[in-house]
């Protein structure tokens, strides 16, 4: 698995991400600077990590989404390459038009930094094949603007096409208002694009991959990606 982690000014989770990718695949991820205009040859996974690119100026992810490297990412995605965006990365992918909708201010206005439970909605995608459908995983979130919103028709399409891969839920896997930490439409925590090769999610699976972190529930996502790409290669 040859992964490339994008680095924008103000991003702060790129090393956590690179570490998780290495753990899953045994291969070092390439760190790609925002001003670069090309991805390394042979890249098969692009990761847009979390943080506060450009200080969240204008709108979260808005400026990063227009950085030079994003043209290469758009082309990579259009050619079917796998793209994963986490937290600020999800916001960037929405702003870049690679995913529909937008991440709004959390409905209860507070920055939320804690572990949450996610229900994995299906297991037949490169981004979820390391889990079972319906499995509940525990991963951290750390965001002020993770309230996923899109127009009614888009949300209906996401649901109808099975494009919601991760949903906020209780420890028992029940999706309800209380577990919907940020007020997201339909408790959406992660979605894929129409083609299924671009995933954006607010929670941080890369921060639950080693025993020292107290939980390894995030491993499945990376292990699944590694297995998928190994099979494809």
């Amino acid at each position: 698995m040859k992964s490339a982690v994008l680095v924008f000014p103000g991003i702060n989770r790129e090393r956590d991400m690179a570490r998780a990718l290495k753990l899953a695949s045994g291969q070092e991820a390439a760190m790609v600077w925002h001003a670069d205009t090309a991805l390394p040859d042979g890249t098969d996974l692009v990761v847009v990590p979390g943080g506060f690119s450009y200080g969240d100026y204008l709108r979260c992810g808005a400026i990063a989404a227009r950085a030079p490297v994003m043209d290469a990412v758009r082309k990579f995605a259009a050619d079917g390459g796998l793209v994963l965006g986490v937290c600020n990365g999800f916001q960037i992918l929405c702003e870049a038009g690679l995913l529909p909708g937008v991440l709004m201010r959390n409905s209860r206005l507070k920055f939320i930094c804690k572990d949450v439970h996610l229900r994995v909605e299906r297991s037949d995608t490169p981004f979820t094949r390391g889990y079972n459908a319906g499995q509940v995983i525990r991963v951290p979130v750390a965001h002020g603007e993770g309230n996923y919103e899109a127009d009614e028709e888009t949300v209906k399409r996401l649901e109808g096409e099975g494009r919601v891969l991760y949903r906020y839920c209780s420890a028992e896997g029940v999706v309800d208002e209380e577990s919907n930490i940020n007020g997201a439409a339909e408790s959406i925590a992660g979605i894929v694009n129409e083609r299924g090769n671009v995933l954006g999610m607010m929670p941080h699976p890369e921060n639950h991959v080693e025993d020292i972190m107290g939980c390894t529930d995030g491993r499945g996502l990376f292990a699944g990606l590694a297995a998928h790409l190994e099979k494809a290669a």
Partner: protein
Amino acid sequence: MKARVTVTLKSGILDPQGKAIEGALKSLGVDGVASVRQGKVFDIELSGADRAKAEAALKDAADKLLANTVIENYRVELL
């Protein structure tokens, strides 16, 4: 030439920041506030003098960056 681009949330989009401001105004005892919606204002200085060109450039700027047209409307004014 001076211009102003005003970006506002589309109606129906939840605006928790506006709601918080509305609550604060009410608790300050400011009378008659029915609701508050927060937006953004960009004051832009343009180098050319052609108004039609300026307007087109500002619309381009708003569509490409200043506004997220999924949730926001914008208004361009040449001052």
